[in-house]
Protein backbone atom coordinates (compact mmCIF):
# COMPACT_ATOMS: atom_id res chain seq x y z
CA UNK A 1 0.00 0.00 0.00
CA UNK A 2 1.30 3.45 -0.85
CA UNK A 3 0.96 6.11 1.82
CA UNK A 4 -0.06 9.65 1.02
CA UNK A 5 3.13 11.69 0.79
CA UNK A 6 2.42 15.13 2.20
CA UNK A 7 5.81 16.81 1.97
CA UNK A 8 8.26 16.49 -0.88
CA UNK A 9 11.95 15.78 -0.34
CA UNK A 10 12.88 19.39 -1.06
CA UNK A 11 10.54 20.52 1.73
CA UNK A 12 12.91 18.85 4.19
CA UNK A 13 15.83 21.03 3.08
CA UNK A 14 16.63 23.98 5.31
CA UNK A 15 17.64 26.32 2.51
CA UNK A 16 21.19 26.67 3.82
CA UNK A 17 23.48 26.06 0.84
CA UNK A 18 25.93 23.18 1.27
CA UNK A 19 29.56 24.19 0.90
CA UNK A 20 30.71 20.73 -0.16
CA UNK A 21 32.76 20.49 -3.33
CA UNK A 22 30.61 20.03 -6.45
CA UNK A 23 30.54 16.30 -7.15
CA UNK A 24 30.91 15.35 -3.48
CA UNK A 25 29.01 12.18 -2.63
CA UNK A 26 27.55 13.85 0.46
CA UNK A 27 25.09 15.75 -1.75
CA UNK A 28 23.66 12.39 -2.70
CA UNK A 29 23.39 11.29 0.95
CA UNK A 30 21.68 14.58 1.78
CA UNK A 31 19.17 14.01 -1.03
CA UNK A 32 18.62 10.41 0.04
CA UNK A 33 17.91 11.47 3.63
CA UNK A 34 15.32 14.04 2.54
CA UNK A 35 13.75 11.51 0.16
CA UNK A 36 13.52 9.01 3.01
CA UNK A 37 11.96 11.60 5.29
CA UNK A 38 9.39 12.42 2.61
CA UNK A 39 8.63 8.74 2.04
CA UNK A 40 8.03 8.25 5.76
CA UNK A 41 6.09 11.52 5.97
CA UNK A 42 8.23 12.09 9.01
CA UNK A 43 7.58 15.06 11.30
CA UNK A 44 10.35 17.65 11.21
CA UNK A 45 9.61 18.52 14.83
CA UNK A 46 10.15 14.94 15.96
CA UNK A 47 13.37 14.30 14.08
CA UNK A 48 16.93 15.09 15.16
CA UNK A 49 20.14 14.90 13.15
CA UNK A 50 23.31 14.66 15.22
CA UNK A 51 26.82 14.79 13.85
CA UNK A 52 30.46 15.09 14.82
CA UNK A 53 33.05 17.07 12.89
CA UNK A 54 34.08 16.86 9.26
CA UNK A 55 32.70 17.62 5.81
CA UNK A 56 29.84 15.12 6.17
CA UNK A 57 29.05 16.34 9.68
CA UNK A 58 27.79 19.60 8.23
CA UNK A 59 24.70 17.76 7.05
CA UNK A 60 22.37 18.53 10.00
CA UNK A 61 22.47 22.22 9.09
CA UNK A 62 21.09 21.45 5.66
CA UNK A 63 18.09 19.42 6.86
CA UNK A 64 14.99 21.23 8.10
CA UNK A 65 14.71 19.36 11.40
CA UNK A 66 16.30 19.67 14.82
CA UNK A 67 20.03 19.17 14.65
CA UNK A 68 23.20 19.12 16.71
CA UNK A 69 26.62 19.63 15.16
CA UNK A 70 28.61 18.09 17.98
CA UNK A 71 32.18 17.37 18.99
CA UNK A 72 34.61 15.36 16.86
CA UNK A 73 33.75 11.66 17.12
CA UNK A 74 31.11 12.26 19.79
CA UNK A 75 27.99 12.49 17.65
CA UNK A 76 26.97 8.96 18.63
CA UNK A 77 27.30 9.68 22.35
CA UNK A 78 25.02 12.70 22.05
CA UNK A 79 22.56 10.87 19.81
CA UNK A 80 22.27 7.87 22.12
CA UNK A 81 21.75 10.08 25.15
CA UNK A 82 19.07 11.99 23.32
CA UNK A 83 17.26 8.85 22.18
CA UNK A 84 17.31 7.35 25.68
CA UNK A 85 15.97 10.58 27.16
CA UNK A 86 13.42 11.13 24.39
CA UNK A 87 12.50 7.75 22.89
CA UNK A 88 9.61 9.40 21.02
CA UNK A 89 12.07 11.17 18.69
CA UNK A 90 13.53 9.80 15.47
CA UNK A 91 17.28 10.14 15.93
CA UNK A 92 19.85 9.92 13.17
CA UNK A 93 23.56 10.30 13.81
CA UNK A 94 25.95 10.90 10.96
CA UNK A 95 29.53 11.63 10.16
CA UNK A 96 32.55 10.55 8.20
CA UNK A 97 35.01 7.67 8.38
CA UNK A 98 37.55 9.62 10.44
CA UNK A 99 34.91 10.92 12.81
CA UNK A 100 33.23 7.53 13.21
CA UNK A 101 36.06 5.00 13.08
CA UNK A 102 39.06 6.91 14.44
CA UNK A 103 38.25 9.73 16.83
CA UNK A 104 34.83 8.24 17.52
CA UNK A 105 35.86 4.61 17.15
CA UNK A 106 35.25 3.75 20.76
CA UNK A 107 31.80 5.31 20.71
CA UNK A 108 31.05 3.38 17.53
CA UNK A 109 31.82 -0.10 18.88
CA UNK A 110 29.93 0.56 22.11
CA UNK A 111 26.95 1.99 20.23
CA UNK A 112 26.87 -1.22 18.19
CA UNK A 113 26.79 -3.43 21.29
CA UNK A 114 24.47 -1.13 23.24
CA UNK A 115 21.79 -1.26 20.53
CA UNK A 116 19.87 1.95 21.16
CA UNK A 117 17.00 2.36 18.71
CA UNK A 118 18.53 4.87 16.30
CA UNK A 119 20.27 5.12 12.95
CA UNK A 120 23.92 5.86 12.26
CA UNK A 121 25.02 6.88 8.77
CA UNK A 122 28.73 6.97 8.00
CA UNK A 123 29.72 8.75 4.81
CA UNK A 124 32.96 6.98 4.04
CA UNK A 125 35.24 8.62 1.48
CA UNK A 126 38.39 7.04 2.92
CA UNK A 127 39.99 10.41 3.60
CA UNK A 128 40.01 13.41 5.92
CA UNK A 129 38.65 15.92 3.45
CA UNK A 130 38.10 18.95 5.66
CA UNK A 131 41.76 19.05 6.67
CA UNK A 132 42.79 18.67 3.02
CA UNK A 133 43.30 15.04 2.34
CA UNK A 134 44.99 12.85 4.94
CA UNK A 135 44.65 9.08 5.37
CA UNK A 136 41.76 7.87 7.52
CA UNK A 137 41.04 4.47 9.14
CA UNK A 138 39.48 3.22 5.89
CA UNK A 139 42.19 4.46 3.50
CA UNK A 140 43.87 1.78 1.41
CA UNK A 141 47.30 0.92 2.79
CA UNK A 142 49.05 1.99 -0.44
CA UNK A 143 47.17 5.27 -1.01
CA UNK A 144 50.01 7.71 -1.61
CA UNK A 145 48.19 10.95 -2.46
CA UNK A 146 49.02 12.69 0.81
CA UNK A 147 52.42 14.17 1.53
CA UNK A 148 51.97 13.00 5.13
CA UNK A 149 51.98 9.39 3.92
CA UNK A 150 53.98 9.52 0.67
CA UNK A 151 54.25 5.73 0.50
CA UNK A 152 50.70 5.13 1.73
CA UNK A 153 49.63 4.74 5.34
CA UNK A 154 50.99 1.18 5.35
CA UNK A 155 48.17 0.08 7.63
CA UNK A 156 45.34 -2.20 6.65
CA UNK A 157 42.05 -0.32 6.52
CA UNK A 158 39.11 -1.16 8.76
CA UNK A 159 36.28 -3.21 7.33
CA UNK A 160 33.40 -1.16 8.80
CA UNK A 161 30.74 -3.84 8.32
CA UNK A 162 32.91 -6.50 9.99
CA UNK A 163 33.75 -4.10 12.82
CA UNK A 164 30.07 -3.32 13.36
CA UNK A 165 29.11 -6.99 13.32
CA UNK A 166 31.86 -8.00 15.76
CA UNK A 167 30.73 -5.20 18.07
CA UNK A 168 27.14 -6.43 18.06
CA UNK A 169 25.32 -4.20 15.57
CA UNK A 170 22.03 -5.89 14.64
CA UNK A 171 21.38 -4.08 11.33
CA UNK A 172 24.11 -3.44 8.77
CA UNK A 173 23.65 -2.08 5.27
CA UNK A 174 25.83 -0.48 2.63
CA UNK A 175 24.92 2.17 0.07
CA UNK A 176 26.71 4.09 -2.63
CA UNK A 177 26.43 7.81 -3.31
CA UNK A 178 25.88 7.10 -7.01
CA UNK A 179 22.59 5.40 -6.19
CA UNK A 180 20.64 7.82 -3.97
CA UNK A 181 17.31 6.12 -4.58
CA UNK A 182 18.49 2.77 -3.24
CA UNK A 183 20.09 4.69 -0.38
CA UNK A 184 16.77 6.41 0.40
CA UNK A 185 15.07 3.02 0.63
CA UNK A 186 17.78 1.75 2.98
CA UNK A 187 17.45 4.84 5.18
CA UNK A 188 13.70 4.23 5.43
CA UNK A 189 14.37 0.62 6.46
CA UNK A 190 17.06 1.75 8.90
CA UNK A 191 14.70 4.20 10.60
CA UNK A 192 11.93 1.62 10.74
CA UNK A 193 14.23 -1.01 12.26
CA UNK A 194 13.80 -1.46 16.01
CA UNK A 195 17.40 -1.11 17.17
CA UNK A 196 20.76 0.34 16.17
CA UNK A 197 20.91 0.49 12.38
CA UNK A 198 24.29 1.13 10.79
CA UNK A 199 24.36 2.39 7.20
CA UNK A 200 27.81 2.48 5.66
CA UNK A 201 27.81 4.77 2.62
CA UNK A 202 30.59 4.81 0.06
CA UNK A 203 30.54 8.55 -0.57
CA UNK A 204 33.11 9.75 -3.06
CA UNK A 205 35.54 12.59 -2.41
CA UNK A 206 35.98 14.06 -5.85
CA UNK A 207 38.68 16.50 -4.73
CA UNK A 208 41.18 14.36 -2.81
CA UNK A 209 40.31 10.91 -4.14
CA UNK A 210 39.24 11.45 -7.77
CA UNK A 211 39.90 7.74 -8.39
CA UNK A 212 36.70 7.04 -6.44
CA UNK A 213 34.68 7.97 -9.53
CA UNK A 214 35.60 4.43 -10.62
CA UNK A 215 33.37 3.05 -7.85
CA UNK A 216 30.37 3.41 -10.14
CA UNK A 217 31.64 0.58 -12.33
CA UNK A 218 32.51 -1.65 -9.37
CA UNK A 219 29.54 -1.45 -6.99
CA UNK A 220 26.99 -4.21 -7.23
CA UNK A 221 23.65 -4.59 -5.56
CA UNK A 222 23.03 -7.54 -3.27
CA UNK A 223 20.35 -9.73 -4.77
CA UNK A 224 19.95 -12.17 -1.90
CA UNK A 225 17.94 -11.38 1.23
CA UNK A 226 19.81 -9.95 4.19
CA UNK A 227 21.69 -12.47 6.30
CA UNK A 228 20.17 -13.20 9.71
CA UNK A 229 22.98 -15.37 11.04
CA UNK A 230 26.00 -13.58 12.50
CA UNK A 231 28.40 -16.40 11.57
CA UNK A 232 27.34 -16.21 7.94
CA UNK A 233 27.58 -12.42 8.03
CA UNK A 234 31.10 -12.63 9.47
CA UNK A 235 32.19 -14.84 6.57
CA UNK A 236 30.66 -12.40 4.13
CA UNK A 237 32.19 -9.28 5.64
CA UNK A 238 35.67 -10.76 5.93
CA UNK A 239 35.81 -12.08 2.40
CA UNK A 240 33.64 -9.79 0.24
CA UNK A 241 35.05 -7.08 -2.03
CA UNK A 242 33.43 -4.31 0.03
CA UNK A 243 31.44 -2.97 -2.91
CA UNK A 244 28.23 -4.88 -2.35
CA UNK A 245 25.29 -2.58 -1.59
CA UNK A 246 21.96 -3.26 0.05
CA UNK A 247 20.79 -4.61 3.38
CA UNK A 248 23.50 -7.09 4.31
CA UNK A 249 22.60 -8.26 7.82
CA UNK A 250 19.55 -7.89 10.04
CA UNK A 251 18.82 -9.67 13.28
CA UNK A 252 16.33 -8.51 15.88
CA UNK A 253 17.77 -8.10 19.37
CA UNK A 254 16.69 -6.48 22.58
CA UNK A 255 17.35 -2.76 22.56
CA UNK A 256 18.89 -0.66 25.28
CA UNK A 257 17.77 0.48 27.77
CA UNK A 258 15.60 -2.51 28.72
CA UNK A 259 11.99 -1.70 29.57
CA UNK A 260 12.51 -2.65 33.24
CA UNK A 261 15.39 -0.19 33.53
CA UNK A 262 13.29 2.55 31.96
CA UNK A 263 10.49 1.90 34.48
CA UNK A 264 12.97 1.98 37.38
CA UNK A 265 14.62 5.14 36.15
CA UNK A 266 11.29 6.87 35.58
CA UNK A 267 10.32 5.90 39.13
CA UNK A 268 13.66 7.17 40.42
CA UNK A 269 13.21 10.47 38.63
CA UNK A 270 9.70 10.77 40.09
CA UNK A 271 11.04 10.09 43.60
CA UNK A 272 13.82 12.59 43.10
CA UNK A 273 11.33 15.20 41.90
CA UNK A 274 9.12 14.49 44.89
CA UNK A 275 12.01 14.91 47.30
CA UNK A 276 12.67 18.39 45.94
CA UNK A 277 9.01 19.38 45.90
CA UNK A 278 8.28 22.28 48.21
Amino acid at each position, binding site marked *: MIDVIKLKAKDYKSGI*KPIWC*PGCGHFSVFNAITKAMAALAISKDDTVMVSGIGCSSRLPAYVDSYGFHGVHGRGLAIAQGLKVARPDLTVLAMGGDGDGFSIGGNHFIHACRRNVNMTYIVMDNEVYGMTK*GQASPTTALDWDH*SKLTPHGPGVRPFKPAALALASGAPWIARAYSGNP*NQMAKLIVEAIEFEGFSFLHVMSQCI*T*FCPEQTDWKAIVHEREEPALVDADEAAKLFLHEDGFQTGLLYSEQRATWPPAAAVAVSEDAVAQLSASFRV
Partner: protein
Amino acid sequence: MANKELAEFLAHSVELESEAKERYEELADAMAQHHNDQVAQFFLRMAQEVSHHLAEVSGLAKGMELPQLRAWEFNWPETESPEAASYEALHYRMSLRQAMTLALESERAAESYYRQVADGSDDAETVRIAGQFADEERSHAAELECMLLELPENGANLREDDDEPHMPE
Protein backbone atom coordinates in the same frame (compact mmCIF):
# COMPACT_ATOMS: atom_id res chain seq x y z
CA MET B 1 -10.23 9.64 -16.36
CA ALA B 2 -6.81 9.02 -17.84
CA ASN B 3 -5.54 5.55 -18.50
CA LYS B 4 -3.13 3.89 -16.07
CA GLU B 5 -0.20 3.76 -18.48
CA LEU B 6 -0.39 7.46 -19.24
CA ALA B 7 -0.69 8.35 -15.56
CA GLU B 8 2.34 6.19 -14.79
CA PHE B 9 4.32 7.82 -17.58
CA LEU B 10 3.40 11.34 -16.52
CA ALA B 11 4.35 10.57 -12.92
CA HIS B 12 7.77 9.54 -14.22
CA SER B 13 7.97 12.65 -16.41
CA VAL B 14 7.17 15.01 -13.55
CA GLU B 15 9.80 13.30 -11.38
CA LEU B 16 12.37 13.35 -14.19
CA GLU B 17 11.95 17.08 -14.82
CA SER B 18 11.74 17.93 -11.10
CA GLU B 19 14.93 16.04 -10.34
CA ALA B 20 16.73 17.64 -13.29
CA LYS B 21 15.67 21.12 -12.18
CA GLU B 22 16.67 20.53 -8.56
CA ARG B 23 20.01 19.00 -9.59
CA TYR B 24 20.87 21.95 -11.83
CA GLU B 25 19.93 24.36 -9.04
CA GLU B 26 22.06 22.38 -6.60
CA LEU B 27 25.00 22.43 -9.03
CA ALA B 28 24.59 26.17 -9.64
CA ASP B 29 24.66 26.83 -5.89
CA ALA B 30 27.68 24.55 -5.40
CA MET B 31 29.62 26.17 -8.24
CA ALA B 32 28.77 29.64 -6.93
CA GLN B 33 30.02 28.60 -3.47
CA HIS B 34 33.31 27.68 -5.10
CA HIS B 35 33.53 30.88 -7.18
CA ASN B 36 33.10 29.16 -10.52
CA ASP B 37 30.60 31.81 -11.54
CA GLN B 38 30.56 31.12 -15.26
CA VAL B 39 29.56 27.49 -14.76
CA ALA B 40 27.18 28.46 -11.95
CA GLN B 41 25.37 30.82 -14.32
CA PHE B 42 25.18 28.11 -16.95
CA PHE B 43 23.66 25.56 -14.57
CA LEU B 44 21.20 28.17 -13.34
CA ARG B 45 20.15 28.81 -16.93
CA MET B 46 19.72 25.06 -17.45
CA ALA B 47 17.54 24.91 -14.34
CA GLN B 48 15.36 27.66 -15.80
CA GLU B 49 15.12 25.83 -19.13
CA VAL B 50 14.08 22.61 -17.39
CA SER B 51 11.54 24.46 -15.25
CA HIS B 52 9.70 25.46 -18.45
CA HIS B 53 9.50 21.80 -19.43
CA LEU B 54 8.45 20.85 -15.91
CA ALA B 55 5.62 23.39 -16.09
CA GLU B 56 4.50 21.89 -19.41
CA VAL B 57 4.58 18.34 -18.05
CA SER B 58 2.81 19.36 -14.84
CA GLY B 59 0.18 21.17 -16.91
CA LEU B 60 -0.53 18.01 -18.91
CA ALA B 61 -0.85 16.03 -15.68
CA LYS B 62 -3.14 18.58 -14.05
CA GLY B 63 -6.41 17.07 -12.95
CA MET B 64 -5.11 13.53 -13.38
CA GLU B 65 -4.59 11.18 -10.49
CA LEU B 66 -0.93 10.22 -10.75
CA PRO B 67 0.50 7.31 -8.76
CA GLN B 68 2.39 8.48 -5.65
CA LEU B 69 5.71 6.71 -6.04
CA ARG B 70 8.59 6.72 -3.60
CA ALA B 71 12.04 7.59 -4.92
CA TRP B 72 13.07 3.95 -5.41
CA GLU B 73 9.79 2.91 -7.01
CA PHE B 74 10.42 4.80 -10.24
CA ASN B 75 11.52 2.63 -13.11
CA TRP B 76 14.59 4.31 -14.60
CA PRO B 77 17.10 2.84 -17.07
CA GLU B 78 19.92 3.64 -14.62
CA THR B 79 20.12 4.26 -10.88
CA GLU B 80 18.89 7.86 -11.12
CA SER B 81 16.36 9.73 -13.24
CA PRO B 82 17.91 10.20 -16.69
CA GLU B 83 18.20 13.99 -16.82
CA ALA B 84 19.80 14.44 -13.39
CA ALA B 85 23.42 15.37 -14.10
CA SER B 86 25.85 12.80 -12.76
CA TYR B 87 27.83 13.74 -9.65
CA GLU B 88 30.79 11.69 -10.87
CA ALA B 89 31.47 14.07 -13.77
CA LEU B 90 31.61 17.18 -11.62
CA HIS B 91 34.53 19.17 -10.36
CA TYR B 92 34.64 22.60 -8.77
CA ARG B 93 37.19 23.67 -11.39
CA MET B 94 35.24 22.34 -14.35
CA SER B 95 35.17 24.51 -17.45
CA LEU B 96 32.09 25.83 -19.22
CA ARG B 97 32.74 23.34 -22.02
CA GLN B 98 32.79 20.45 -19.55
CA ALA B 99 29.61 21.71 -17.93
CA MET B 100 27.89 21.99 -21.30
CA THR B 101 29.06 18.52 -22.28
CA LEU B 102 27.62 17.16 -19.04
CA ALA B 103 24.31 18.92 -19.69
CA LEU B 104 24.28 17.59 -23.25
CA GLU B 105 24.68 14.03 -21.95
CA SER B 106 21.76 14.62 -19.59
CA GLU B 107 19.53 15.99 -22.36
CA ARG B 108 20.41 13.04 -24.58
CA ALA B 109 19.66 10.61 -21.76
CA ALA B 110 16.25 12.24 -21.27
CA GLU B 111 15.55 12.08 -25.00
CA SER B 112 16.53 8.41 -25.06
CA TYR B 113 14.24 7.67 -22.12
CA TYR B 114 11.23 9.39 -23.66
CA ARG B 115 11.93 7.73 -27.02
CA GLN B 116 12.05 4.29 -25.38
CA VAL B 117 8.70 4.92 -23.71
CA ALA B 118 7.19 6.07 -27.01
CA ASP B 119 8.55 3.03 -28.84
CA GLY B 120 7.50 0.59 -26.15
CA SER B 121 3.97 1.73 -25.41
CA ASP B 122 0.72 0.42 -26.87
CA ASP B 123 -1.22 3.43 -25.65
CA ALA B 124 -1.66 6.01 -28.40
CA GLU B 125 -1.75 9.01 -26.07
CA THR B 126 1.37 7.87 -24.21
CA VAL B 127 3.16 7.32 -27.53
CA ARG B 128 2.18 10.79 -28.72
CA ILE B 129 3.18 12.67 -25.57
CA ALA B 130 6.41 10.69 -25.01
CA GLY B 131 7.36 11.31 -28.63
CA GLN B 132 6.67 15.03 -28.17
CA PHE B 133 8.84 15.13 -25.03
CA ALA B 134 11.63 13.27 -26.83
CA ASP B 135 11.55 15.83 -29.65
CA GLU B 136 11.74 18.66 -27.15
CA GLU B 137 14.75 17.09 -25.44
CA ARG B 138 16.36 16.62 -28.85
CA SER B 139 15.81 20.30 -29.51
CA HIS B 140 17.49 21.23 -26.19
CA ALA B 141 20.38 18.93 -27.05
CA ALA B 142 20.74 20.55 -30.48
CA GLU B 143 20.95 23.99 -28.87
CA LEU B 144 23.70 22.79 -26.60
CA GLU B 145 25.54 21.22 -29.53
CA CYS B 146 25.49 24.60 -31.32
CA MET B 147 26.71 26.39 -28.19
CA LEU B 148 29.54 23.88 -27.82
CA LEU B 149 30.66 24.53 -31.40
CA GLU B 150 31.07 28.20 -30.56
CA LEU B 151 33.26 27.48 -27.51
CA PRO B 152 37.04 27.29 -27.92
CA GLU B 153 38.47 23.78 -27.62
CA ASN B 154 41.04 24.88 -25.04
CA GLY B 155 38.22 25.41 -22.61
CA ALA B 156 38.18 21.66 -22.01
CA ASN B 157 40.86 21.71 -19.29
CA LEU B 158 40.19 22.21 -15.62
CA ARG B 159 40.38 25.85 -14.60
CA GLU B 160 43.38 27.18 -12.75
CA ASP B 161 43.15 27.34 -8.97
CA ASP B 162 45.15 29.88 -6.98
CA ASP B 163 44.55 27.88 -3.80
CA GLU B 164 45.09 24.23 -4.58
CA PRO B 165 43.30 21.80 -2.27
CA HIS B 166 46.55 20.06 -1.26
CA MET B 167 48.29 22.37 1.18
CA PRO B 168 52.04 21.97 1.82
CA GLU B 169 52.46 19.45 4.61
